[in-house]
């Protein structure tokens, strides 16, 4: 049984923690294996079609705000997740040493890439290009800061253990937006409310997989009960390591991490920040008890200071 006020650490059953009775559906999620992602963006389109999301930015070149028009960020003209973009495919182009040269750990960002060749130099054989693609999505954290800070109860934990914005409740206070350690949720311009991936809550209810996972041609996006996905991910990681892909690593899989494990986790081929993901996210509410204690102390100081000011005679 979860402690009812759990704010961080492993959480076996987030739905139970949110009041769902025993027998609720298992916690479901996504395992996104970026090693087989071909960057086709079917997930982005299928998501927008299903959820009837507006396009953000067609024909608008370089206006302020989110990324519009050609970004120059490789083939990523989406930029990031947002209020009308629940799936975002990142494209990272890297120059790396040719595979036939001595193996290097490509994952460590702390050094220059060995063998890097300056543009203009002859790069025949010396290096090759690596093009990483990864479909990002809301992580549906076990400890979801967006949910916990939401003052209206618009953001809830569902029976599937996912995190959902209730459109009929949200009043657009915007608190969830900076609370998210991944920068997922955002306010839709012209609407005012906050939106993010729902894991296709309506489809889940009908026994369907979310639109993105349904479309994904190469099974880079897998949907299912989280326990099964974690097993599958572990097996895939071992397989890749066996094949010499030492840079493969899982991200968000660990229930001991700062958010209690993600409901949507990833197999990455480089450090998370390369893909625009925080390397070690922590749910902000982990520190909330301490924050309240400090605030109480400070409030007492205010009360004390005001009271003390009235001590003594009047002038």
């Amino acid at each position, binding site marked *: 049984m979860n402690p009812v006020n759990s704010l961080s650490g492993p959480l076996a059953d987030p739905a139970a923690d949110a009041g769902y009775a025993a027998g609720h559906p298992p916690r479901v999620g996504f395992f996104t294996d970026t090693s087989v992602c071909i960057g*086709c963006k079917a997930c982005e389109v299928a998501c927008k079609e299903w959820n009837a999301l507006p396009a953000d930015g067609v024909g608008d070149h370089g206006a302020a705000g989110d990324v519009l028009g050609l970004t120059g960020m490789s083939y990523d003209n989406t930029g990031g997740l947002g209020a009308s973009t629940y799936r975002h495919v990142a494209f990272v182009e890297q120059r790396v040493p040719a595979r036939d040269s001595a193996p290097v750990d490509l994952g460590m960002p702390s050094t220059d890439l060995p063998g890097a060749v300056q543009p203009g130099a002859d790069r025949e054989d010396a290096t090759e290009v690596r*093009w990483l693609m990864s479909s990002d999505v809301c992580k549906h954290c076990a400890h979801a800061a967006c949910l916990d800070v939401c003052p209206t109860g618009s953001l809830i934990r569902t029976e599937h253990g996912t995190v959902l914005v209730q459109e009929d409740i949200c009043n657009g206070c915007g608190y969830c937006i900076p609370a998210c350690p991944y920068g997922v949720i955002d306010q839709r311009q012209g609407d005012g409310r906050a939106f993010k991936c729902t894991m296709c809550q309506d489809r889940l209810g009908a026994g369907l997989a979310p639109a993105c996972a349904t479309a994904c041609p190469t099974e880079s996006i897998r949907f299912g009960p989280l326990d099964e996905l974690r097993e599958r991910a572990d097996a895939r990681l071992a397989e890749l390591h066996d094949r010499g892909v030492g840079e493969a690593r899982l991200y968000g899989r660990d229930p001991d991490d700062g958010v209690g494990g993600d409901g949507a986790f990833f197999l990455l081929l480089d450090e998370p920040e390369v893909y625009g993901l925080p390397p070690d996210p922590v749910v902000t509410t982990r520190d909330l008890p301490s924050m309240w204690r400090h605030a109480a102390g400070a409030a007492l100081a205010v009360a004390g200071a005001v009271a003390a000011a009235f001590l003594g005679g009047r002038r």
Partner: protein
Amino acid sequence: MAEAHPVGFQWVMEAKRRGATVIHVDPRFTRTSAVADLHVPIRAGTDIAFLGGLIHHVLETGAYFEEYVRAYTNGPMLLREDFADTEDLDGLFSGFDPETGSYDTETWQYAGMTATSSAGDRDLDVHEAERGQMPGSGGAPIATDPDRDDTMQDPRCVLQVLRRHYARYTPEKVHEICGIPVETFRRVADALVENSGRERTSAFAYAVGWTHHTVGVQYIRAASVLQALLGNIGRPGGGILALRGHASIQGSTDIPTLFDLLPGYIPMPHAHRDQDLATFIEANGGTKGFWGDLDAYVVSLLKAWFGDAATPENDFCFDHLPRLTGDHSSFRTVMDQAEGKVPGYFVIGENPAVGTANARMQRHGLAQLEWLVVRDLNMIETATFWKNGPEIATGEMRTEDIGTEIFFLPAAAHTEKDGTFTNTQRLLQWHHKAAEPPGDCRSDLWFYYELGRRLKARVAGSDDPRDRPLQDLTWDYPVDGTGEPSADAVLREINGVDGEGKALPGYTALKADGSTSSGCWIYCGVYADEVNQSARRRPGAEQDLLAPEWGWAWPMNRRVLYNRASADPDGRPWSERKKLTWWDGERWAGPDVPDFPVDVPPDYVPPRDARAAKAIGGAEPFVMQSDGRAWLHAPAGLADGPMPTHYEPEESPVGNALYGQRANPARQRFERADNPYHPEPGTPGAAVYPYVFTTFRVTEHHTAGGMSRWTPHLNELQPEMFLEVSPELAAERGLTHGGWAHVVTARSAIEGRVLVTERAKPLRHGDRVIHQIGVPWHWGPNGLSTGDAANELLGVSLDPNVHIMETKAATCDIRPGRRPRGPELVTYLADRRRQAGLEEEQR
């Protein structure tokens, strides 16, 4: 493949997961390269040198599948003494006529043939220059067994000729021509050889990167030669897979809306003084193999079209068919349009104003029409060229001056009509109508049915003999309440019926006596048992991998063509791992429909007077070929050589490192003011267009954009025309990432945002660095995201066999900043042409 066929690519990823090696050969580093085990950057337009290098490697290291080559290919066949190779003639084969720019192919034949060579050559009424237009469906008719040497040691045998032909395609030459390092080349060769043979197979997949060349057909031929040598044809996991780009582009060639073909790859008849049906059959059919039954196919087609009017007495209305006199292909036609010779034009679900090479010429053609019918989902550029075409902006055309009358008829979407698409693996799949089309939107089936109905009504009482074909045309299709004709009934007509009006089971049931009809013999069987077989939808999960009960593949629902070759000459599988079709003692067995007469045993030797299907020996898997074998050397059927030879593209920055002959000598060129070509490499003006560009597609758009530029969710993903250049080229030309640049050719200049990417890699050619620019294909002035069309840049020069244009390799210049606008563009281009020495030459 990951770029343009992502869902098909799932099977490549599946294979990779199971240990397959995936190699991607492409001038550009694409999404496919990103997940391939090896990306091999290649100079655009040099694939035959690369494939030739592999053929050289396979022959010189003895890595070919000898038993397969001996039994199933024409490797042992002896060639005529007077055949001369490119080795002897510095890049030409024997028989070239420099005046007509075409080959007499007689010397390419096998030795010991009693009949003289191919159909066209016997057909004295057909002019030499028209022969390229004869598709040669059946290949060379062979009356007797040619001479052969089964040891394959005779210097005149095909295998030895092939070895000599590819002798100079060494890894070092491949490096020089293609820019592929020797070490990389060896990795490819090793992977290919290691994964071919009895136990393993390799497949080649290609798309328009191989076909859009002046030697496009020979690209595919080169892969065929290589795969035949390695024993990778007719076997599971083998083959050469065309990844076609449109839902029914395969169907569009099977039931062709192509000038030179009748349904089922039957050639259109040529102009003749006195050709009757029998001589047409004799000239075009084979004596052996399934082309030997051409008479049954043609008669059944004529019966399907002209019904009771087609009788043995009137040659089944064979004379109702119009006759060709040469090239009537799209490009030829457009040039005729531009000269005002073609008043009427139907454009149906196509967008040549931006989608076809030398788009400016296309629009000039459109502007000279009297009337134009455009049918499409969206208001495409072909319908609006008179309003917002680039020539309006440059002042070359004025709307008021354009006399073209235009009917834009909105079309129904695939969800709004019944019908079949034939996919890239020859699979016919029925799509059911889900909703009524809105407003005036109608299916193209409705349009043509209605057009035909009204035309027939108008000529019903005519006694003009010209109208007879129209009067005789069968045109009775049931219609539903909305007037929509039944696609099901049309499919049934395509399948064909017997004398009692029952649907035929397959093409072997077709008769030449007029008792059967079939609108397309290769599709015969799609309505077998009076069931629309294309609409079968037994879930894949309930079937084996071939899924024979999903849709229907022509011919006869075979999923792997020539699958007889998956067994050895004795009918045993080459290996247990790779078994597919085998002789079980009584018949050919296995999960697939055997591509072979099912009860002909492996040891069957046809009697000398046997013809057609009966003439196929029990160990001759290539049943459509007149000798039953895969052709390493093509004795007929090709206009530009019996063996693939490396030629440079029409426009390339360097000369041919192998031969004196630079480009395909038989290629089709159009020396016209509106179709200027760049100077040859080495001439003074060549430096004006120093770089290579190659056109490409991205996943987010579809071809010229007619179906993708109006969809918000696709356009936001690729919102602007861009140009891919390497950092090295960006530095050389001062291009800024994210800024504007324009690409210039003698035809036009187009602009786009610069994407400087290390995926683009300059290649070495000797001491020269070759820069290649990637130009995506999808934009035009209309839609949600707009931009210049790549086709503005391209000139028209064609493959001589199939009249397809070269879009994948040409030369250009690139400059920072946007292109000049308005009339300035015209002067700008003319200035560049003058610098290149083209303007005086042309005008």
